[in-house]
């Protein structure tokens, strides 16, 4: 009896979620510190340089936001499909197709009489269409061909990469020569306006805010949002409830692809101003970590994406100042996810234990 009371007492003292988050963060920092120590670096100095690289001046802060914009959009896109229970690993290809469609549109319209604003707008819209259509291929293979969206998506990523390389080295190559530096840069009038002295476009920031408000409403306040959540929880049960699961899953894929395509289009009109071989910059895969760490919560995704963005930008300092490989900041990113998942598991275990004890009582 005494033992039972002791168990209940422990369960009552179950730490709050914030404690688990702190524990996972500390764990990730300790783990990364160990890696740094093994690499012969001073962890404190390394972290200081990452922070200085991310927040040292207004230009660095703006550079962090330049990374944050496509990363947030892509994470938001993935949250739609993850909510519907679809592991859309083809997100990289969808970003690329968005960039390809935007580039194609700019190439076609660059000498037209349309105003640059309209051309940029149309390029972004076509980017969304390109990403959505590429996602639709995965959706069709998943819903009508019985092919896992994971394998279909990964396969289509390779196709998208090959397609962009072919375009860069053949039909869209620079005059006389194909180059890994990409297609010929577009005229400056077709660049999305940036804040003077910075690489950051205010328009892209506004776009993120608008998109996330839209996503919040879509996922929380509409029938569609509730239905894809039901599908994600239990596909069969959702079907029995009369939800048109195929239609809604396809819609989730199209929306996700559209937003990923928008991120790709922004890479073209706001960052690189041309199509380059790695136009997706790996944001699709990074966004998966963001969505996982944010537990598919939109607001959290914005925060985590920012944390990842500053690690990316801050990590640039490592080779310059400390002669360290800057991918060590990536170790911190993945360690955060790993330890968060571990602590999530611990928390779940303790919660279940508490429940068991309550029933036993």
């Amino acid at each position, binding site marked *: 009896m005494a033992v039972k009371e002791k168990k209940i007492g422990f369960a009552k003292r179950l730490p709050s*979620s914030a404690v688990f988050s702190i524990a996972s*963060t500390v764990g990730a920092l300790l783990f990364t510190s160990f890696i740094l120590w093994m690499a012969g670096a001073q962890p404190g100095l390394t*972290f200081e340089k990452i*922070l200085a690289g991310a927040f*040292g001046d207004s230009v660095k802060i703006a550079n962090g936001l330049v990374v944050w914009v496509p990363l947030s959009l892509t994470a938001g896109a993935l949250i739609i499909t993850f909510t519907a229970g679809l592991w859309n690993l083809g997100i990289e290809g969808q970003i690329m197709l968005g960039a390809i469609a935007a580039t194609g549109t700019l190439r076609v319209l660059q000498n037209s009489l349309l105003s640059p604003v309209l051309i940029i707008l149309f390029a972004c819209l076509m980017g969304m269409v390109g990403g959505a259509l590429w996602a639709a291929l995965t959706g069709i293979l998943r819903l009508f061909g019985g092919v896992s969206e994971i394998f279909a998506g990964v396969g289509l990523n390779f196709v998208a*990469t090959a397609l962009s390389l072919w375009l860069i080295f053949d039909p869209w190559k620079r005059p006389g020569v194909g180059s*890994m530096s990409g297609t010929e840069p577009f005229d400056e009038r077709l660049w999305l306006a940036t804040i003077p002295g910075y690489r950051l476009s205010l328009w892209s920031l506004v776009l993120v805010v608008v998109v996330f408000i839209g996503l919040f409403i879509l996922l929380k306040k509409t029938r569609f949002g509730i239905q894809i959540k039901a599908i994600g929880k239990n596909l069969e049960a959702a079907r029995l409830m009369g939800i048109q699961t195929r239609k809604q899953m396809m819609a989730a894929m199209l929306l996700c692809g559209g937003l990923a395509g928008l991120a790709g289009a922004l890479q073209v009109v706001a960052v690189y101003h041309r199509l380059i071989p790695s136009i997706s*910059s790996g944001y699709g895969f990074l966004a998966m970590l963001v969505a996982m760490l944010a537990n598919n*919560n939109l*607001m959290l995704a914005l925060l985590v994406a920012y944390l990842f963005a500053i690690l990316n930008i801050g990590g640039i300092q490592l080779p310059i100042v400390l002669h360290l490989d800057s991918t060590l900041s990536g170790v911190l990113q993945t360690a955060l996810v790993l330890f968060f998942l571990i602590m999530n598991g611990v928390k779940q275990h303790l919660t279940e234990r508490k429940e068991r004890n309550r029933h036993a009582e």
Partner: protein
Amino acid sequence: MVSKNIKVVFALVLVATLLLTACAKGTSEPAANSEESEKFVFGMLLVGAYNDQGWNQAHYEAGLYVQDHIPGTEMIYIDKVNTADRPGTTPDQLAEELVAQGAKLIIFDSDDMKDGAHAFAAAHPDIPVIHASGDGAWVDGNAYQNLPNLANVMGRMEYGKEIAGCAAALSSTTGKIGYLGPLINEETRRLTASAYLGAKYCWENVAGKDPADLTFEVTWIGFWSNIPGVTLDPTQVADDFFNRGYDVVISGIDTTEALTEAQKYADEGNTVFAIPYDFKGGCGQTSGVCLGVPYYNWGPSYTSYVQSAIDGNFTPSWDYLAPNWEDLNNPDTSALGFVKGDALPEENGAKLDDFIAELAGGLNLWKGPLNLQDGTVFLAEGETATDYQVWYLPQLLEGMLGLSTAAE
């Protein structure tokens, strides 16, 4: 639920920031003293890893050479400057990071950074910019920028490749030489064609063999190194050459698959060879398969640029540097060199030395009659190619197998 989760991750972000700050306290670097502030810092952007045993290591070691030869200079660098490794960044942005750390001259080491180098040079007219392998400072070039702070430098590696081609021809018993090509552009076409010209010349004139018995084939993998699922696998391409009876593979890519595969085939009892590229130590630890390596030596030219920047008399220039024929492998005077490998027997080594002496004496293999791959005349009888014709070679040459452009 939402607000609870926000608190959780906000706490996570906050804790991460606080811990990072706390960890940072007490470990700050000491303030720069006056001696450090007088240092001339130069920055270098490397497209790949600084220790890749190839193109980037050659540049990195040139930076160390500058430090050794101009007291008071210090190199800072960022490697892996490409969009796959540094998402969301551009070369000009990263160059500004180097400037923020005190760099007063910036070196961009890749053709892939052309736009970034030009944009940075235009935006920072007070910072001398060196763009290796580019043509933006060439008044007669196709990409001339007319920027007062931009210089280009490139070794005349055509000679190095001609020597490599000659070594291959002297060593081949099957008369089948493979070329492991990267991507197709003007630079790679002219270097591949140079290897062919060297091989053809030595096959006929040194080895005294029938030109009809020589096969020279290039396979382009699509990039400077292997990207699984995107490029052809250079290991497979090298294997394919050896399996089809090609006994020498000349590498034009930045990684060492040709050499590694040659070693594997040699260990199985086959007589095959390879010739790596870019870096003086390119033959590495292999045994009995490396015929030699044509390499770049950027150190002397970088020293000259840095010194002129220190002296305040930096001027734009397009420098297409020939080797020092008096002493091909002199680290202080030759822009490129050729190190013989342990697989080149003494007799062939001597013949190769004779060929090098001929080049030093004025032998020009870029002399007509030469036709392009499609049969059109490139150089008429007795005509010698200009730098422009060589630099912007539009096709491979007649007699070479493989694609001239990606469009075919």
